[in-house]
C-alpha cells in the first residue's frame, strides 16, 4: 500500500527577519519578535491582528499569548511548539501549523523563532541543557560542539567521508553569504588558509566548522492555499513535511545504532513517500548545519549521496548557485548568513522559490528544508511553487 500523499493546501505568504550580531539587538527579545512578526504581515499584506495561531521550536521563551497586546490579536485560537532544545524541530513547526490550518483550528499561523542573548543567554548552553547528565558531563561532554565532534570523527575515520566535503560545504556557504546583502558574511568570502589554520575547537572541528549565534527573530506566515491566492506575494506551498526519529536513535547516552548519522533516515523516507518526490527532483536545499559534518551527514541521510559517493556530490562547485547541480544554503546558511536557531534557512527556502534570493537557482520548483541534524527529534519539509 502506498503512503498517503500530504495535502498541499497551505502556503507561506509572508516573511520577516530582524538579525543582529550576538549581543547586539536594539530591542529585548519580545520586542524583536514583534517587529519581525509585523514585518512578515506587511510583506504578506495582512493585519497582524489577524494572526490567530503561533508555533515555534527549540524551547523559544516567547509564549504567544503574551504577544497579543502588541499585535492587537483578535483571538488566539491555537499555539504550540515542537519538543526538543535544538533545531531539530524547525521543519516540524510547519507541519504543526499546516495541521492546525487544515483542521480548522487556526487560519493564519506565525511560525517563529526569536533569540536575544541578553534575555535567553547563550543558545549553545540552552540546547545542551536538554542533554546534560552525569554520564556525559563528567567526561567533558559539555557542549553541542563536543557531542557533534564525536559523531563527526566516526563519520570521517570509520566511514571514510573525505575531510574535503566538510571544507567544501563551509566554502559554499560563505560563497553564497558573501553575495547576500542580508548575510553576516556579506562581502567576505572564506579565506581557505584562514579556515584551515583557524583554532581547533573539538577535533575534527575548527572554528569555521561551527555555526555562529546571532540575536534576532525570524517569522514565516502560513495560511490556506485558498487565502494565499488573494494576498500580496507569490504563494510558496508546503509540499510535505515529516518529523520524528527511527528506532535506535535519540537516547541520552548516544548509543544510536547509526552514530555518525544526522538522524534523518526515517524522516526522509516518509517525506519522499508522502510527496512522491525523490532527491533528484529537488532543485535547491536549505540545510540546517550546526556543524559542517552534521550538514554533510544530513545530505547523506536524505539520499543525495552515500558514504561512497559523497566525495563526488558534496563538492564546492556542485554546491553553489546557479551552476551547481545541488545548490545548498544559497543565503549562506547558519554558517555564513546568520544563526537565529535556523529560522533563516527556512526564510531562504521561500526566498529562493519566490525568486528573490541573492543567489537565485533558475526555475527552482522544489526546495528541501532540512532541520537541525543530530538532534534527538529531527524534521524535514519540501516547499514548492506549485499548488498541487
Amino acid at each position, binding site marked *: 500500500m502506498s503512503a498517503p500523499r500530504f495535502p498541499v493546501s497551505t502556503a507561506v505568504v509572508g516573511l520577516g527577519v530582524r538579525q543582529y550580531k550576538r549581543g547586539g539587538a536594539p530591542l529585548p527579545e519580545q520586542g524583536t519578535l514583534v517587529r519581525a512578526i509585523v514585518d512578515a504581515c506587511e510583506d504578506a499584506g495582512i493585519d497582524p491582528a489577524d494572526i490567530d495561531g503561533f508555533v515555534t521550536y527549540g524551547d523559544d521563551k516567547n509564549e504567544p499569548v503574551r504577544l497579543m497586546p502588541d499585535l492587537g490579536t483578535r483571538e488566539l485560537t491555537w499555539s504550540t511548539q515542537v519538543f526538543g532544545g535544538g533545531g531539530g524541530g524547525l521543519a516540524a513547526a510547519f507541519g504543526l501549523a499546516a495541521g492546525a490550518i487544515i483542521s480548522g483550528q487556526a487560519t493564519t499561523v506565525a511560525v517563529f523563532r526569536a533569540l536575544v542573548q541578553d534575555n535567553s543567554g547563550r543558545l549553545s548552553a540552552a540546547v545542551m541543557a536538554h542533554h546534560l547528565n*552525569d*554520564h*556525559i558531563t563528567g567526561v567533558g*561532554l*559539555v557542549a553541542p560542539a563536543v557531542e557533534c565532534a564525536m559523531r*563527526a570523527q*566516526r563519520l570521517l575515520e*570509520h566511514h571514510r567521508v573525505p575531510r574535503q566535503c566538510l571544507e567544501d560545504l563551509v566554502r559554499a556557504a560563505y560563497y553564497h553569504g558573501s553575495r547576500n546583502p542580508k548575510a553576516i558574511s556579506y562581502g567576505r568570502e572564506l579565506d581557505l588558509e584562514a579556515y584551515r589554520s583557524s583554532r*581547533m575547537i*573539538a577535533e575534527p572541528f575548527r572554528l569555521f566548522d561551527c555555526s555562529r549565534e546571532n540575536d534576532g527573530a525570524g517569522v514565516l506566515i502560513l495560511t490556506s492555499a485558498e487565502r494565499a491566492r488573494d494576498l500580496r506575494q507569490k504563494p510558496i506551498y508546503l509540499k510535505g513535511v515529516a518529523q520524528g526519529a527511527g528506532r535506535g536513535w535519540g537516547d541520552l547516552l548516544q548509543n544510536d545504532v547509526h552514530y555518525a548519522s544526522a538522524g534523518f533516515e526515517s524522516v526522509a523516507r516518509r517525506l519522499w513517500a508522502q510527496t512522491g518526490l525523490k532527491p533528484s527532483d529537488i532543485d535547491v536545499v536549505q540545510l540546517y548545519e550546526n556543524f559542517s559534518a552534521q550538514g554533510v551527514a544530513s545530505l547523506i541521510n536524505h539520499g543525495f549521496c552515500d558514504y561512497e559517493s559523497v566525495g563526488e556530490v558534496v563538492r564546492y562547485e556542485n554546491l553553489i548557485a546557479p551552476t551547481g547541480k545541488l545548490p545548498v544554503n544559497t543565503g549562506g546558511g547558519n554558517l555564513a548568513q546568520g544563526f537565529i536557531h535556523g529560522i533563516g534557512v527556512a526564510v531562504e527556502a521561500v526566498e529562493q522559490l519566490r525568486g528573490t534570493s541573492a543567489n537565485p537557482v533558475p526555475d527552482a520548483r522544489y526546495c528541501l528544508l532540512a532541520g537541525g541534524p543530530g538532534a534527538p527529534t529531527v524534521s524535514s519539509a519540501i516547499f514548492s511553487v506549485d499548488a498541487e
Partner: protein
Amino acid sequence: MEDAVKGLGADAPYWEALDRGELALPRCTSCGRWCWPAPFRCGSCGGWTFEWVSLPMTGVVYSWTRVWHPFGGAEDLDKPYVTASVALPQADGIRLFGLLEPGDRAEIGLPVVGRVCKTRPFGQETAAIRWTAAS
C-alpha cells in the same frame, strides 16, 4: 547515593558499582538483552526485571574527540582532553563515555582498559571512567 539521583533512567546500580570501583550493566532477565541507557522496561520483550552484571572494565574505542576550546563546565579538565565513546564487546557493544588518557593514542578500534576516577563537571564531583590503551 547522591550520584544516583543525578543519573538517568533506572541507572542507580551503575553509579553504586562505580563507587565500589567496579562496572555493572543491566541485562533483561526475560530475553537476555543488554540495555543501555538503563530502562525501566525492556522495549524488546516487555520485561520489567533486570540483572545488573559485573563486567571487566575493558573495551574498544568507538569514537573520540580532542577538545581544545575551554567550554564552561569542563574547567577541571586540562586542555586538550580527549573524550571517547568506548564499546564493550562483553555487553553486546553497549557504549560508555569516558576520558582517554594519554590522548595522543586516540584512534577508533584502540583496545582500552578503564578505571574509576572522580571529576568535577560544573563544580560538582562525580564518578567517571578513565580509559587507557590496553597495551
